[in-house]
């Protein structure tokens, strides 16, 4: 009897010493966590939370989730009312909205081993750092890449474009072989802004927004160059005009009839969101990742490479350590990673990647996209202000006027240059 008892005591002591870092968390704690997402994400995320609660029985997590619509408005109200959740999912450009000085969210370096920072490379940590304070950890990194409807390209008798010239050349061929309602790629105005930036950066090799100088890192003639690019894309039947786009009403690109039926045969889409474009295709259509076109002598691909979403901890949380445990669990732990899979795009955490690789889950067009990004020249860190809603709107407005022929190429470029510079001066403070 005695030796068995002592063995049990020994095991108990060992367990206690293992659990030592969490002893202070032994009192029951309720955490609040918020995220946005769709049906699949809600289910997966809830499953991951249940596993977390099983692992740490003293912590309850209250899930506060919504769809995308209104999430920012709600978070803004909560943050200004000091009622934000302990752990929240944020968009990358929200960091400049809530934490320009780095004090808007908890500094994760102040926490101990609960956050396993070793799983993240320096680059992804830099994206979550504001004014020297680590505010957030990325869930997944994203860039816009070219994805094509391979079935339509086969019908046109063309291989997927591998260069800008091949993309331009595909326009007239689509028109003559398949008909005027077929286009090699579908770009809405927001995509045009992104593609114009990529086009310019491949030549200039520097970020488009100069945050220090509060202005565009480009000249007026540079802006006219991207206006001319859009004019050319439309004129050469590479992408549908604004009029044609408008005739579909205010419909998301992946829900447009022409995309579903394969008449618009390409997108310039985030790797974290390409799943939706693949899901809506009518049966029999196949989507494939295309090679990224580079201009001759390009020093950089001009990717808009940044976290698709991040986790951040409330600066005033009462339970920073428990929130950090939860954050680390969701980002790194095998159980959570298996529950979430690639639904949030390819994860950043090294441990999460290893788990998915061991399970053979690193497949599909989103993962191929992530691998393509690693092979491309990609050194430019764009300022978060490039995606500021007002900057984006100013660009889009100029492109729209150009598209409706209310402005010519030179005037549209000038307008972009003047309007965006003016807005940058006002919003960067």
């Amino acid at each position, binding site marked *: 009897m005695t030796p068995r008892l002592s063995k049990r005591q020994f095991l108990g002591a060992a367990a206690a010493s293992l659990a030592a870092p969490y002893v202070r968390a032994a009192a029951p704690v309720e955490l609040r966590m918020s995220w946005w997402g769709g049906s699949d994400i*809600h289910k997966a995320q809830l499953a991951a939370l249940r596993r977390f609660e099983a692992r740490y029985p003293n912590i309850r997590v209250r899930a506060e*989730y919504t769809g995308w619509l209104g999430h920012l408005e709600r978070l803004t109200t909560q943050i*200004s*009312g000091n009622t934000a959740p302990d752990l929240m999912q944020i968009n990358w450009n929200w960091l400049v909205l809530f934490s320009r000085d780095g004090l808007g969210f908890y500094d994760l370096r102040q926490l101990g081993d609960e956050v396993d920072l070793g799983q993240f490379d320096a680059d992804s940590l830099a994206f979550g750092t504001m004014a020297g304070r680590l505010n957030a950890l990325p869930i997944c990194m994203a860039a816009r890449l070219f994805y094509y409807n391979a079935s339509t390209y086969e019908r046109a008798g063309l291989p997927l474009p591998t260069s800008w010239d091949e993309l331009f050349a595909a326009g007239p061929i689509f028109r003559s072989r398949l008909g005027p309602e077929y286009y090699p790629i579908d770009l809405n105005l927001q995509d045009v802004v992104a593609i114009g930036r990529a086009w310019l950066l491949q030549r200039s090799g520097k970020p488009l927004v100069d945050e220090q100088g509060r202005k565009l890192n480009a000249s007026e003639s540079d802006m006219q160059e991207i206006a001319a690019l859009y004019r050319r894309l439309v004129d050469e039947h590479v992408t549908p005009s604004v009029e044609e786009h408008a005739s579909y009403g205010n419909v998301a690109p992946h829900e447009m*009839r022409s995309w579903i039926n394969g008449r618009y045969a390409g997108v310039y889409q985030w790797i974290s969101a390409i*799943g*939706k474009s693949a*899901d809506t295709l*009518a049966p029999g259509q196949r989507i494939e990742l295309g090679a990224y076109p580079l201009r001759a002598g390009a020093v950089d691909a001009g990717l808009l490479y940044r976290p*698709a979403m991040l986790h951040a901890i409330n600066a005033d949380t009462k339970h920073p350590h428990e929130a950090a445990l939860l954050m680390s669990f969701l980002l790194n732990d095998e159980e959570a990673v298996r529950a979430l899979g690639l639904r949030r795009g390819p994860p950043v955490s090294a441990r999460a990647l290893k788990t998915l690789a061991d399970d053979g889950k690193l497949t599909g067009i989103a993962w191929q996209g992530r691998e393509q990004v690693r092979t491309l020249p990609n050194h430019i860190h764009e300022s978060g202000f490039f995606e500021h809603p007002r900057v984006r709107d100013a660009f889009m407005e100029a492109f729209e006027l150009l598209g409706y022929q209310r402005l010519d190429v030179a005037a549209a470029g000038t307008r972009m240059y003047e309007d965006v510079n003016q807005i940058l001066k006002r919003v960067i403070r």
Partner: protein
Amino acid sequence: MRAVAPSAPVRPSTPAALSNPASLRPPALGQFARLLMNLGPTLRYSVLIGIGFLMLYPLLWMVAGALKPNHEIFSGIGLIPQAPTLEGFAKGWQTSTEYTFTTYFLNTFKIVLPKVVLTVISSVLVAFGFARFHLPGRRLWFGLLIATVLLPKSVLLIPQYLMFREFGWLDTFLPLYVPSAFATEGFFVFMIVQFMRSFPPEMEEAAVIDGCNSLQVLWHVVVPVIMPAVISVALFQFMWSMNDFLGPLLYLSSVGNYPISLALKMSIDVTEATAWNEVLAMSTLALLPSLLVFFFAQRYFIEGVTLGSVKG
């Protein structure tokens, strides 16, 4: 009134006319004109039905969409599903959350019913005051009330949020309906005031002479008369509250407290394709209460909205 039978012939009928029905027809009416007479209503009704169908098309499309599989929804504008399925209803009701739509329906009514009752009571009281009592500075107060109608709601969001936070009311239904107890919808007060002005005050004066106090006058004399306006207010508030998205979004943080308007948008994300058939199926069900209430109260509703505007 009852003496005249409803089917009494209009023109004076002589015995000769009765014995020869053909003589009742106007003599100049030819074959073609008779055709036109019959064509008139046919044409009128087919135009009306055609336009009615066009107006109802989005609604019908929603119901049809609820019965279609997802990829079929956007590929055509036809109404008839190729392979009708109730999957959207079944899955939509289950939702992707920990709760079913039952919870969201119940939550909606927990907000909407108190809100409608409080709005009606407070708006009628305040309107009665403005319409029948000569308070000092009445015009100014009424002007201020109308000014609140013009105030953009978004201006109030953050201050109200902070106030309700201090009350400890966040994540409860209270911030969503308690304000209605203070006649905060100036438009409703305005509507009822206009309606009351269209009635002469003599009846109320008679009631006062008979010994009624102000509240008794309101209850026994005024309320029965302004019933159409009251029902319009209740209906408007019912429909607006059913559709309110921003209020619940800000004040309710627990998913278990969400009303339908939030729950419907739960599965719409920017990175994931949306199961629109489920959303449409649940939207169809969410519309039913409003439709039913409207049909039952339709007569009063139309009267209430138009009468005040014409006679006011």
